[in-house]
């Protein structure tokens, strides 16, 4: 309990935001047009919340490896991330239990900006292979 999930560091560029926009079809201009973003009360172009969510997804799939299964992933976007700034994804184990012979692990997850503020936080539920199955 309290075990740390191996952290994941990201530093999305505006290019990466454009790649994400194209990959998921999110063409909302606050993610690529600075003037537009400012007209909507933002200080500049912001990182897509869902991209931060996908970073947290990668945090978990990297951590559980091929043998693990991601069952649930939730993420609440609390603050803005800006391109060119580091985003550090972290997590820790909050619960372990067995149900129907499956080994479940619950984690809390979050993303930090360079000031150490949590810009997103969430949870994951994963199924890990049992020791018997060769883990």
């Amino acid at each position, binding site marked *: 309990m309290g075990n740390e999930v191996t952290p994941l560091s990201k530093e999305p560029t505006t290019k990466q935001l454009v790649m994400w926009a194209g990959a998921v079809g999110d063409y909302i201009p606050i993610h690529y047009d600075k003037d537009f973003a400012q007209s909507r009360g933002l200080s500049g172009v912001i990182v897509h919340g869902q991209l931060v969510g996908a970073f947290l997804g990668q945090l978990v799939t990297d951590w559980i490896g091929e043998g693990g299964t991601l069952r649930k992933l939730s*993420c609440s976007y609390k603050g803005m991330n800006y391109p060119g700034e580091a985003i550090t994804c972290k997590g820790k184990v909050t619960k372990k239990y067995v149900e129907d012979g499956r080994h479940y692990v619950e984690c809390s997850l979050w993303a930090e900006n360079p000031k150490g503020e949590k810009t997103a936080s969430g949870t994951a539920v994963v199924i890990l292979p049992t020791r018997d199955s060769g883990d």
Partner: protein
Amino acid sequence: MAEGSLDIDVLKGKLGVEWEPRSYPVESEMVRRFARAVGDPNPHWQEGAVPPTFVLAIGFEQFVDDLMSLAAFGTVLMGGTELEFYQPIKLGDVITVVFKITNLRERQGKMGNMVFTTFDSSYKNQKQETVANCRQMVIGY
């Protein structure tokens, strides 16, 4: 439209109503492009496995287009995402997504009226098996 007088009557009419299903074939280049956009170097995503969060790419563009046509939002900000995965999506699957707005809440903010829009999406494969469900919240203003 003046700020603070955002009309969401049309959107309210969609509350609880399932939108027309739309189907999308999952092709390898879409998945590779998604993994590159995340900056996720996991070789599995290059070898035919599909990252769980790939569901975010299915039908989202059409959903946002529809949403923006229902209410005169200047923009939308994503507030949260909850995903449940039931089985992996595979290359070659044809995924049918159905969206539904499940909650609308209005609040006065410094940019005028803000509309907290919660929407669910369900994803089924070509065998009618549910592969994932998603609940997200966007703030329109």
